[in-house]
């Protein structure tokens, strides 16, 4: 694929995913029906350089003509937050509630650590300004917005040179009047300011979470805006037809919308991976998958059920610092649900005070990296252990792009592990691999078993550089029948950019008891949401005709503190619909908690509206090149790998990506080296290559 330079002939779709180490580009040409990928190094100081580098390479090799659309998974929002390089931001609150942002939900992320850090508020106390005003829970104004207080606050903002302002008043989800008045006044005085209002960013009740979401939006907005605006301009000069961005919910957004609500971009990259997984599953006819993505420093696992990635409604950004939980910054809005742990190729092996071997969570990262990279690292990592045992080919790692030094790996493992226990090198390396793998297995348990899902009902989809080597063992130990390694495992996330559609979620809190709601209230709530959605869709350059809409409401028993989301077809304009809704809620409650409370009063809390625009998405048959058929496979040599439980070296046939053809069966044990990963098939398993190049591993 890479290196092939057939010129494109039709409309071209491009996806660019910026990761920690590499920026991946995937392009699809409707004319020749070919998919091309390429990888360049990420440019951390200005990630757009890497993006354009990849784009120019594509133009030079294939796409001399116009590019129809470009979809981007960006790290700009996350990096702005992680590096705390956001704007000087001011927060306006109801007077007496300036500290809600700092008090949080007042619990702590670690039980026993007296020295724990808590994520510091993004706006310091002196820039959190209270304004006298009050609206009650029903939206009635108790006291008007204090104009002179507001003017003083604006003066303060001007003195401080504020770039971005967040406004979050109590109960603004119910009545946005005061937030709107304040915004108008601020813009009249400081026209260049970015103003984010909580009723606009996420109008849901619970003041801390809404304020946190709004503050984060304000904090990262100027930097995201500059980045996207520059990129948009340059892309249109390059003749790119449309430019959109992947959001945390797995849907796309025009860059115009993305600039206004950058808080929805924080999980852009990981979301792309899960969209990719769901799309591949659909193509393969597999509904339930556990997606496992193992990179250098972190491993992520997510769930696809009935063809869709699992979504959650709250996410804590930046919640882990140096491997320990620090609380992070909650964001309310649908986000693809992922579990992330500090485990990967760079995880360091070490010995604790009682003499027990551990692997991770600390990672050697990209710098200094595993010892075997020869870039100054001297601690033994998971990758070093895999190399010493023979699972990795030092000359062929990352498709030969990274040379590995076996002797450096051996020295690190000997010095830091083997010598302590008086073990052979192989024994020490096997021990590290077993423990590292047990950590990954624990994570798979966490997303499945601990959430009430039985892994036996799932297939395991493994991608990312370090995942496929251990996936077959993890699957075996958790009784997962089938493991799938997609082609292009190393750029698999970027594929998701080509297949995603536009998706916007809106919410509004309007509490009504179901036995009291009048026939006009439901339709009114949905009409409000639809108005807001129209505004968003206008900026997508889309008309209503192509849009699919989904309505739902969040409900609970009166007096409870949590809600269940119940999808609905109508708008609750007639009492029959409301009765039907009550029954649906009861069923869903019973399914979730094994009981219901018939006769108890039920409350609607939030109204939700989701709009999607599915573009003509190319299916896997188009995107993944068909490969020629064959019935049997022969290895291209053997590699000596150390078999931990037999305590001896065995010879394992090695296959090369490209040499394996569709329909080919690979009996285990076998190793398959591809351009960006290595796959291992156990003795009692066999691999089957399908016509799209997916490797399906099952027991013999």
């Amino acid at each position, binding site marked *: 694929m890479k290196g092939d330079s057939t010129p494109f002939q039709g409309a071209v779709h491009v996806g660019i995913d910026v990761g920690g180490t590499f920026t991946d580009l995937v392009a699809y040409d409707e004319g020749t029906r070919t998919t091309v990928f390429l990888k360049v190094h990420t440019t951390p100081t200005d990630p757009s350089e890497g993006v354009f580098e990849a784009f120019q390479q594509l133009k030079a090799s294939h796409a001399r003509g116009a590019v129809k659309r470009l979809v981007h998974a960006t790290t700009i929002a996350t990096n702005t937050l992680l590096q705390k390089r956001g704007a000087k931001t001011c927060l306006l609150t109801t007077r007496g509630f300036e500290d809600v942002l700092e008090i949080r939900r*007042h619990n702590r992320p670690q039980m026993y650590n007296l020295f724990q850090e808590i994520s510091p508020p993004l706006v310091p106390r002196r820039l959190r300004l209270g304004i006298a005003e009050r609206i009650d829970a029903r939206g009635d104004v108790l006291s008007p917005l204090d104009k002179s207080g507001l003017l003083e606050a604006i003066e303060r903002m001007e003195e401080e040179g504020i770039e971005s302002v967040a406004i979050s008043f109590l109960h603004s989800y119910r009545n946005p009047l005061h937030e709107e008045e304040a915004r108008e006044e601020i813009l009249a005085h400081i026209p260049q300011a970015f103003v984010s209002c909580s009723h606009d960013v996420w109008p849901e009740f619970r003041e*801390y979470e809404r304020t946190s979401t709004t503050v984060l939006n304000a904090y990262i907005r100027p930097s995201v805006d500059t980045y996207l605006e520059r990129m948009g301009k340059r892309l249109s000069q390059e003749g790119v037809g449309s430019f959109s961005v992947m959001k945390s919910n797995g849907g796309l957004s025009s860059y115009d919308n993305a600039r206004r609500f950058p808080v929805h971009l924080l999980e852009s990259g990981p979301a792309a991976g899960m969209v990719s997984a769901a799309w591949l599953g659909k193509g393969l006819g597999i509904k339930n998958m556990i997606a496992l993505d193992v990179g250098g420093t972190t491993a992520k696992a997510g769930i696809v059920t009935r063809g869709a990635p699992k979504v959650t409604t709250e996410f804590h950004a930046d919640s882990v610092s140096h491997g320990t939980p620090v609380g992070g910054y909650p964001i309310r809005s649908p986000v693809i649900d992922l579990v992330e742990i500090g485990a990967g190729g760079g995880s360091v092996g070490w010995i604790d005070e009682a003499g027990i071997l551990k692997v991770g969570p600390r990672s050697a990262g990209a710098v200094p990296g595993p010892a075997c990279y020869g870039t100054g690292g001297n601690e033994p990592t998971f990758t070093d252990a895999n190399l010493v045992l023979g699972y990795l080919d030092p000359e062929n790692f990352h498709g030969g792009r990274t040379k590995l030094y076996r002797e450096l790996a051996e020295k690190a493992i000997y010095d830091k592990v083997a010598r302590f226990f008086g073990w052979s090198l192989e024994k020490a390396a096997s021990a590290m691999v077993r423990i590292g793998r047990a950590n990954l297995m624990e994570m798979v348990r966490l997303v499945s078993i601990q959430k009430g899902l039985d892994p036996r009902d799932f297939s395991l989809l493994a991608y990312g550089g370090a995942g496929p080597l251990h996936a077959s063992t993890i699957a075996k130990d958790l009784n997962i029948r089938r493991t799938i390694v997609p082609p292009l495992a190393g750029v698999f996330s970027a594929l998701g950019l080509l297949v995603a559609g536009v998706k916007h979620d809106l919410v509004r809190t309007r509490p009504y008891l179901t036995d009291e709601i009048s026939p006009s209230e439901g339709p009114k709530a949905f009409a409000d949401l639809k108005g807001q959605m129209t505004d968003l869709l206008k900026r997508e350059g889309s008309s209503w005709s192509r849009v699919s809409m989904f309505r739902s409401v969040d409900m609970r028993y009166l007096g409870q503190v949590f809600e269940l989301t119940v999808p609905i077809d109508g708008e609750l304009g007639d009492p029959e619909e409301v009765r039907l809704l009550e029954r649906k809620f009861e069923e869903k409650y019973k399914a979730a908690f094994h009981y219901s409370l018939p006769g108890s009063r039920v409350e609607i809390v939030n109204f939700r509206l989701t709009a999607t625009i599915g573009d003509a998405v190319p299916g896997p048959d188009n995107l993944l090149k068909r490969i020629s058929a064959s019935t049997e496979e022969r290895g291209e040599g053997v590699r000596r790998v150390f078999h931990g439980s037999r305590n001896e070296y065995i010879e394992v046939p090695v296959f090369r990506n490209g040499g394996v053809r569709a329909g080919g069966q690979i009996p285990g044990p076998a190793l398959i080296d591809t351009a960006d990963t290595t796959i291992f098939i156990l003795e009692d398993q066999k691999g089957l290559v399908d016509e799209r190049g997916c490797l399906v591993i099952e027991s013999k």
Partner: protein
Amino acid sequence: MKGVVLSSNPNKRREEKEGPVVSSDPVTFEILRSSFYSICEEMKSVIMRAAFSPLISLSSDLSCALADATGKVIAQGNDIAVHLGAMPNSIKGALEAVSPSRLKPKDAILTNDVYNGGSHLPDMTLITPLFFEGELIAYAVNRTHWPDVGGSAPGSSSVTQEIYQEGIRIPPVVMFKQGELDPQLSSLVLANVRVPEERLGDLHAQFAGNMRALERLEELIHRYGLEDVKKVMGETLGYSRALIEKEIQKIPDGRYAFEEYMDGDGYSAGPDGRGLRLCASIEVKGKSVQVDFTGSAAATKGPVNAPFAVTASSVYYTLLAVTNPSIPPNSGCYDPIDIIAPRGTIVCAEHPYPVVSANTETSNRIVDVLLGAFAQAIPEKVIGASYGSACIVTMGGVNPRTGTDFVHYETVGGGMGARPDRDGINGHRVHMGNTMNVPVEAVEAAFPVRVCAYELIQGSGGRGRHAGGCGVRRVYEALGPGIRFSVLCERALHPAWGLQGGESGRRAFIYIQDSRGDRTPLPSKVASVELARGSRLCIETAGGGGYGPVRERAEVEAHGVYPVVA
């Protein structure tokens, strides 16, 4: 009947032999050991999903543990701190009452006995023996907070005078017999609690959690063999013990004593009006620690008397916190600790003294006393005193909008003590508990109450090189008639002290402000007082103590709200 409890650890085993802690293959050991802890996590997630009570599902007010065949806790989830010491004590109490030889597979013992290993009555412990091929190899245990266990007030939590007002007391009884719920025993229990159908569901959820532990343990035995699993169970105790002993050895030998006074018990501020004396003398000798509470106040009328398990939990928590919080908790790491808590005092409650609020108030004050003692030995590992409370505010009455009764229960954060290297955290839950606050917008939508302010009290943290965390002001206005409230708080009389020259934090202050603006101060524990319509209840929790002399503070302004003088 005054006596002395000599040992905290009911299964104490004094092994002085030296040698490697772990003789199993270290890899098998590490994988099995972490599996035991993940079994506890998995039990917890089963219970949270299956429980009827949203309190359990959402606040996760529960703890899970695995014990070996002798009842020693070998693994315990990273759960509620106040349950730490309660686990081993409850198992011991249960196995004394119900002989293990009588137990059959899939039996389960239920108990909440506060005078025999319990913490307070709403905490229900369920213990299931795990058999493999007829051999008893372990116990699965979970302790789950029921939202109500009867007694004088809904929620079973208010200012009481004797245990009978706090709810039903259940000595260890075999509630599940070979997988079946005993219909007669359960009907007796459920007849004594509010909303019995939900509690029946919670009980089944607890049993489902223990059954999950059995399944997981069987899987481990099939993969690694019974002998290895049993061996690692034993070695896990030695492992945690070795880790804590190494930490104790780093503490200089010596005797370190400290004392303080609690505010009172809701009826009076102690016999001499100064409050209730809490004192501890810690003796560190080599690898072991003895904590002696002799001299602490006699048990009192109000519910601040700590059951022994609560006192023990506070000791274990503090020791882990000032040494190495990442040591996996189990009976092994409690082994080197002796606790002397004289019976009939507020650190070792006896029948029929009320106990319900020791869990949230006394426990946190005990931690501060222990920190004060440890500060003399290892000041670099200790923080200043904190607000000493969970500050529980309950309100109830009739909601004029709906005409129905309402009860509301919430906690208010406060100042954490300053740390040797950084400020204390502002407006924060400390030490023994960790549940969340209730959003202002949720309170106002549900109850006839308006929250007029929810903010940090500027300058309330004790000044110092590092400042104590600020206390919190939360102000409620009654919007309807006949609203009654209770408050359980601390440090209105005695402020949180600083360390190494750091200053004390501001005291807690609780008062009513009527519609004319006149203030009526209240003590820190208030039982069922009416708040007139339009009047405001103002809660101001204490600030944390500072650390180091204030003149050493580099920059005051850079730390935002911290101790800028108001």
